[in-house]
């Protein structure tokens, strides 16, 4: 048999595995449909300028770039949330929409140990704001993970506003804030402290930012966090998460939930609550999402928005791990 190589970071999915992939997608498709989501297929190629002009978490180095016939730079779809936000803001003409998608996104910088072609199933809810909408999004995410058969997982919730609030108080420059964000994300308290001292953040903010790396666990971390700051934005973020948690309790989803105020995703497009789905046996999140009010406004129409995407291949890996554990 002859052998043809594939580029790094992509692979074929053969019938056995594809069957399981299709089954998971089918389950989610049904789930999304019943919850009132309408499916979209966004263009696979887009102009580079669309992403360059939007404040987004898609870095230039992550996009597959090509030159179009007329010399314009085009990219292979790097992110579904941006594509859906663009559609909701420019093409639907309504004040709200519930969109879902099953698509691959492409990440140029990956490869080697991570995938450059990522199969995602996701939902985006436009025009609904407030704690109840956030709680519903999280509860629906939990529902979806249950529907595809996962048993042992948690959804870890954070809020970008808390960190933003602490930053306001600290007097740190944007550059310093970005460096420190990296340390917080790695829960690296040692370097975080060194950097805070070097950049001369004010005392109270220093203590609070340092505490971020240990502010994770049950809902009690929200109370702990409250004692650390009197910044208005930080406190309102905590109050919001408490409301979300209360709603999640009503929805019966609270036992799958934990909190981590030290998950500081790129601040570029998330504006409020953020969450990740974590399953045993897979070393990376199986689901990721959050609130991104303000993104649609950059496309010309101010719509509040919340959504999440499921990484289907990772879900399949988690299912395998659960099965292996049972045997």
């Amino acid at each position: 048999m002859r052998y043809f190589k594939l580029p790094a970071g992509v692979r074929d999915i053969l019938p056995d595995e594809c069957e399981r992939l299709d089954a998971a997608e089918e389950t989610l498709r049904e789930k999304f449909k019943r919850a009132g989501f309408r499916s979209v297929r966004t263009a696979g190629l887009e102009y580079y300028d669309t992403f360059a002009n939007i404040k987004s978490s898609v870095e230039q180095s992550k996009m597959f770039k090509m030159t179009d016939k007329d010399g314009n730079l085009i990219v292979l779809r790097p992110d579904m949330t941006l594509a859906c936000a663009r559609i909701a803001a420019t093409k639907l003409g309504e004040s709200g929409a519930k969109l879902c998608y099953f698509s691959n996104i492409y990440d140029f910088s990956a490869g080697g140990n991570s995938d450059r072609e990522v199969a995602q199933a996701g939902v985006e809810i436009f025009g609904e704001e407030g704690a109840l909408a956030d709680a519903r999004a999280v509860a629906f995410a939990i529902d979806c993970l249950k529907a595809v058969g996962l048993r042992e997982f948690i959804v870890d919730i954070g809020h970008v506003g808390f960190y933003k609030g602490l930053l306001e108080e600290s007097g740190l420059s944007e550059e310093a804030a970005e460096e420190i964000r990296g340390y917080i994300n790695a829960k690296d308290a040692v370097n975080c402290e060194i950097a805070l001292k070097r950049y001369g953040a004010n005392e109270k903010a220093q203590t609070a930012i340092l505490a971020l790396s240990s502010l994770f666990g049950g809902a009690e971390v929200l109370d702990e966090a409250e004692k650390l700051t009197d910044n208005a934005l930080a406190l309102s973020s905590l109050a919001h998460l408490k409301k979300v948690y209360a709603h999640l309790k009503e929805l019966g989803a609270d036992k799958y939930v934990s909190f981590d105020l030290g998950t500081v995703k790129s601040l570029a497009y998330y504006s409020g609550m953020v969450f990740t789905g974590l399953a045993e046996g897979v070393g990376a999140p199986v689901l990721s999402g959050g609130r991104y009010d303000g993104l649609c406004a950059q496309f010309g129409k101010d719509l509040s928005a919340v959504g999440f995407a499921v990484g289907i291949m990772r879900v399949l890996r988690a299912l395998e791990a659960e099965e292996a554990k049972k045997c």
Partner: protein
Amino acid sequence: MLNVALAKGRLADSCADIFIKCGIRAQILKEETRKLVLETPDKAFRFFFVKPADVPTYVEYGIADIGIVGKDTLLEAGADLYEMLDLKFEKCKLCLAGFPEKREALASPHLRVATKYVHTAKKLFFSRGEDAEIIKLNGSIELAPLTGLADVIFDIVQSGGTLRANGLVVLEEVFDISARLVANKVSLKTKAAEILPLIAKMKEYI
């Protein structure tokens, strides 16, 4: 069961001591063996022995829930994981070293630097806005300035004995290095009940 990745060698011995102090039945780590996987008798812990540079990999992929590894290895690997604890043993420094007269050359426009830590060195000089030629070596780094392969070296210095024996000196101490406890980003949450008490206990014995 908690899966722990440990670096083979000296570091594993220090790790065994601290684990035993924490009440983990890790005596097995002290035994002479060629096995790569060891379990505690109560099946609460499983230890993997890997090369130091592979500890971040095992933890990032979630095969190991936690691991213990030097900060130098972490800097070089750039893996996406949580750095939970500074264990404060295996202390040393990542330094720029060379002949004493090379001190001025540190700011030269095109410095040749020999090192095992290629990524870390690149990041260091990039952050300083300096161009440097990074030359990858796998051992006996001190030989590079002696033979004219490089102007300076970027390497860990513990006692400085090898440097002195070869007429070299530390030109600049760049990073403080010590052993760190790292955790997989998912495991920390899904196995919090096992990992967090362990970390709390280890803190007491540092």
